């Protein structure tokens, strides 16, 4: 069974069909690219998958169960996690708190235990556990030194990494990355490619990636889905996509 499957997914905004007939299937441990010209509807698809928008047609299945109509935070518990095209960190909080917030769903202690922190209660156990986990995660991204810095003071590339780390903290099966290389130079992009490959192995997750940088997509994705005007125009391996006349047409405007 596929990890993520969409059937005939679509959304219409006031008469304008932004996405339609979107069918995709992502299995475990896959790395899939979603590309298309500006305004083709890539981010809209992410918003549909993560529950930000309610689809007007079609279905989304995660592990065979529909997630349509669930709130974004509920979809997180089903194992979908995402980053944003324009970075959305908790800017005035520390780096470590940014990550700890994403562990929220994995912690259980209640309000009473929050106010009455008797020794040996769940509060101390869970907080200690999360502190270790969060620092380990930061270490993987070589950011343990910055743990107590405010996240807004991180350099741009690290902010992107922190967003990925935060997405991984929710314990996802599928990570949706929205233009992770935006604003990076070729050297940083190359490092990012290594990071993406690495997290797939390390965390055993599937990855769906929106990207403009062709070298990145072609370099790491096993499969690529191309959309234009909200519709899929091609699917296949990087080789196939490269030579597909429809894709070339969409990108060159022919």
């Amino acid at each position: 069974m596929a990890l993520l499957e969409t059937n005939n997914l679509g959304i219409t905004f006031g008469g304008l069909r932004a996405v339609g007939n979107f069918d995709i299937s992502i299995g475990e441990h896959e790395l899939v690219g979603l590309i298309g010209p500006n305004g083709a509807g890539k981010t809209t698809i992410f918003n549909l998958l993560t529950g930000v928008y309610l689809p007007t047609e079609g279905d989304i299945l995660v592990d065979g169960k529909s997630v349509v109509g669930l709130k974004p935070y509920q979809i997180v518990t089903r194992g979908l996690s995402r980053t944003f095209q324009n970075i959305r960190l908790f800017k005035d909080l520390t780096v470590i708190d940014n990550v700890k917030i994403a562990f929220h769903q994995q912690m259980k202690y209640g309000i009473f235990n929050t106010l009455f922190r008797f020794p040996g209660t769940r509060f101390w156990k869970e907080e200690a556990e999360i502190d270790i986990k969060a620092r380990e995660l930061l270490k993987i991204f070589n950011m343990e030194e910055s743990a107590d810095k405010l996240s807004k003071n991180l350099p741009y590339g690290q902010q992107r990494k922190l967003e990925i780390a935060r997405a991984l903290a929710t314990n996802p099966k599928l990570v949706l990355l929205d233009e992770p290389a935006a604003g990076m130079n070729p050297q940083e992009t190359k490092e990012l490619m290594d990071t993406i490959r690495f997290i797939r192995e390390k965390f055993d997750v599937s990855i769906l990636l929106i990207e403009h940088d062709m070298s990145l997509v072609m370099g790491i994705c096993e499969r690529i889905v191309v959309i234009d005007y909200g519709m899929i125009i091609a699917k296949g391996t990087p080789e196939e996509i490269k030579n597909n006349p429809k894709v070339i047409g969409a990108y060159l405007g022919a």
Partner: protein
Amino acid sequence: MKKWQELLISLTGITILYILISMLLKFGVLNNYNRGIMVLIGINIIAAASLNFATGILGQLALGHAGFMAIGAYSAAIFSKAVGDAGMPDVVVLIIALCIAGTMAAIFGIAIGIPALRLRGDYLGIVTLGFGEIIRISIYNIKAIGGARPVLGIPNLIGFTEIFFLVVIVLMALFLMIRSRHGRAILSIRENEIAAEAVGIPTTFYKIFGFATSAFFAGIAGGALAFNQRMIDPRKFTFMFSVEIFIIVVLGGMGSLTGTVVAAVVLGILNEWLHFIDQYRLVIYALLLVVMMIVRPSGLFGTREFSLVGLIKKVIRFTKSNKNVE
């Protein structure tokens, strides 16, 4: 430093402060008039800290805080008058009355929060303002609780000791709340609601929860006010009263509870100094607010908190590094 050591330091600091002020009162350095002012400052701290929780921590602009205080004040007054002759010790009456005051205000907070918190920013501010006014006008129109006439004959249950420990308890509860997974969830909503939802925070729940918590402590402040004044004047709980509390929050720094404490104390003392030019008092406050927004919009403290433990750690580090130099 271990957790229990930090706790010990904080408790020691609080105890020393309490003993110090008690001594000053006992030996007449501070008179009864000063005592009254300190109680009022304490009430303002609770009111402003609770507002800061909604506006500075949760990030939702609320301009109807006086309404929640009014609910708390009336609830506390009605309860204490009802049990007036039952022979319960004052402290017990006070504790139960304040719990009822807070709970009633929190119930209204939930009822108002569920629809209102779908809005953001200035629109939310206006809606909370509207709800605050509706509460006030409703009180005017309910004859059973006195209508537009003041409520008299409320027992005086709040003195310096009571308000001091009430402030400590409220601030501690708020700090404990903020430094937990629930508090982080609330902070994440202030920072970026969409991202919060995307990492698994049930934002709607936490917005209403945070707003209700804020209303709860506002209700307690209102109850304390009723016991301190021994009467309730329904005309007090206007929009301007909400704004006065809001000014304390803004001056102290939205997001800093210790900033709120400092601002409430400073404004409380300033109030007395400005007493002889009472008519200019509000003019000066208004100018202060405008100048503050232009020069230092984050307030005195920004989102930072003063911490005795942090200060001591700094001192230790400083002395250690000096020793190393030698």
